[in-house]
């Protein structure tokens, strides 16, 4: 486990949720493996559809469960 990754996923991911919501984004949350598919998303906050996985990506770390491919 990379603890810095957990900091980014939980703490920065939470902070990014509020930022996304404040921008008028439609916010839903999911930590499914779909986050990995968005790892290459632009490093700008999405203003239309933002979920927690995106927020983690924005913070630099898409969330993926250990052992999940």
């Amino acid at each position: 486990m990379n603890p810095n990754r957990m900091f980014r996923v939980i703490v920065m991911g939470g902070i990014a949720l509020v930022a996304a919501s404040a921008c008028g984004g439609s916010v839903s949350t999911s930590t499914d493996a779909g986050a990995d598919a968005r790892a290459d998303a632009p490093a700008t906050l999405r203003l239309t559809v933002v979920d927690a996985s995106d927020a983690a990506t924005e913070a630099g770390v898409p969330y993926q469960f250990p052992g999940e491919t």
Partner: protein
Amino acid sequence: MTAGSLESRRPILWESFDVGALSSDARSVVGDTWRERMKQEHLAVGAFALLVQELAEDGCDPIVLSLVTRAANDEVRHTEVCRRMAVALLGEAEVPARLHGFPKVPQHPQSSREERVLLHVVEMCCLSETITGVYFTEMLGRATQPTARAALESLLQDEIDHGRVGWAYLSTRARDSRLDGLSAALPALIERTVGRALRQADRSHEDDAAMESYGWLGRTTALATIRRALREVIVPGFETLGVSLSVARSTIDKLLDGAP
């Protein structure tokens, strides 16, 4: 409501859950932890329901209220997932079919309403649920039995959000310069969550790879994981949001360095 409707959004193949790789003693140890977790998840239903009331009364960003409201329902489902894990390991007769009860929530009588909701969110989400997210991530990294992994994943995907919503709320309180009372209260909050988790971990059996494969952490790994969550996730989280740790520093240092 059927049991199936309480199932995780991730499928869990209970029918193929094979506990035969564990000795009878090992099944008892691992099963006990899932039965205890079942109780904690049930108590979390009431804790989040209280947070919903307090946040709705005091006001917060809609995303925070939405996630906390959903969390109460998540915990109902978690209780059932843990119950089924415990039943598989211990047998139906050893596990209650349902629970009742409400957590003893600190009332913080000297605090104002707006201070009290902040302390409750920090204790529940920034501390307790954040530790749980890190703990389950470590547990999942060691679990190999497919059904146990699926159960852990179903819990973990929600626990991550339960931690996140705390940091989301704390960020709005920091943004609005409404952190009064938090720094002074942190030593007690940290002791009650991190300290209790460490003491509980210290009573565990030593690490065992076979038991880890079914979703369990032994003493050495559990203690290290909880301390890592405090040192490398929670403390940097408070620092990032400008929460003073000057009063809490000695408590943090004691928990990181000393005996549980």
